[in-house]
């Protein structure tokens, strides 16, 4: 069956066979395939960026959640023992080392007193309740833990620092996470 070509001028005898692929259609398909490939190539970096950023954010939040859990567990242990730093034993550090080594997201980090200085350490500061007393600030054990989460995504550290709202710093590919926990002293030593 032959039909007039859509672009054929009236009065001309030009016709096309619709059953046969035309060179024009073939070329059009090739151009379209090329365009689709280029579109995919343009989108791919963004998709990759989103994917890596999502993994980075999830990983950082996992670390935050784990740090909060560990902080609370350590504060509770200290509260049950009558203080975070009693009888000359570094109870908090011992408990933290044990908890951190068993916590997903933190397991490969080491524990040290003070602010965390790198992504491989968890720092701790005893804010109150080093030795539990019956009244005042020391009737609670307050423990602040910190660590740094490194991200693959550029500048995500700065974005993550907006999340917790407690002055956590972030720069480039690093986010300093702080987690604080409180537990009521259960043994009074002073």
């Amino acid at each position, binding site marked *: 069956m032959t039909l007039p070509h859509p672009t054929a001028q009236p009065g001309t005898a030009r016709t096309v066979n619709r059953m046969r692929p035309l060179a024009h259609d073939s070329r059009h398909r090739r151009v379209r395939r090329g365009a689709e490939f280029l579109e995919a190539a343009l989108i791919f970096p963004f998709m990759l960026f989103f994917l890596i950023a999502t993994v980075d954010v999830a990983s950082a939040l996992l670390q935050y959640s784990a740090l909060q859990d560990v902080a609370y567990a350590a504060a*509770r242990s200290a509260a049950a023992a009558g203080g975070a730093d009693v009888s000359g034993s570094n109870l908090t550090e011992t408990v933290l080392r044990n908890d951190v080594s068993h916590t997903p997201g933190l397991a490969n980090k080491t524990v040290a007193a003070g602010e965390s200085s790198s992504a491989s350490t968890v720092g701790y500061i005893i804010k109150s309740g080093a030795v539990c007393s019956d009244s005042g600030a020391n009737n609670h054990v307050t423990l602040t833990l910190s660590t740094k989460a490194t991200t693959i995504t550029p500048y995500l550290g700065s974005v993550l620092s907006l999340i917790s709202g*407690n002055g956590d710093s972030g720069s480039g590919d690093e986010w300093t996470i702080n987690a604080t*926990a409180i537990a009521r002293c259960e043994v009074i030593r002073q």
Partner: protein
Amino acid sequence: MTPLHVGTRRCLRGGSMFFFFAVVALPMLLLAGAVAIDIGRLIVAHRQLETSLSAATLAGAWTFDQSGAANRGLDTADALANAYATYCQSVADVMTAATPAEGVSPGSAAACADPNVARPGGIRGDSLGADISISNTAVDGQQQVVADGAARVNDLILLGFARALLSGGGDTSITIRAQSVAYTCNADTTSDQQDGHCSRPLPVDVGDPA
């Protein structure tokens, strides 16, 4: 017909690449970033609220246990007071991601002195609230200290905008809720702790109290 003719020479010549980045890629990036920050803030605030409530219920359960077996089920006022005091202290020191719309700042000690911060009745509208109760129905000799808490996460970006749009107002905050339950020990406290029936941990042996 492909409106932008992306990928064709005509497209590249016509500046559609710029159009693509300006209209599709960059806004997509910003929207994804905004949602990530919002969700992150909600997660962090929720974890902080849970931690505060846990501290409160455990303090309540511990105080309740301290009252002794003879008073069990009778002396709950001290336990509640202690639970609220602990929650209050925790709000002051732990809660940083949720900010009251007005009034007290949870980052300051004033939060603990403010009687509106934590009182029975749940969220107070302008602050962080908790409704803490001790149930009168004991299970196996243990009683429950239950805390329901709420906190408001303000100034959310995209989720806040959606919230404001849905509520028809300018409120860009979202209220989160959490609950914590702690169990008191029963009369035989020592064996109960060893069996792990109550919420208190086993004491760590670091020597006798001075």
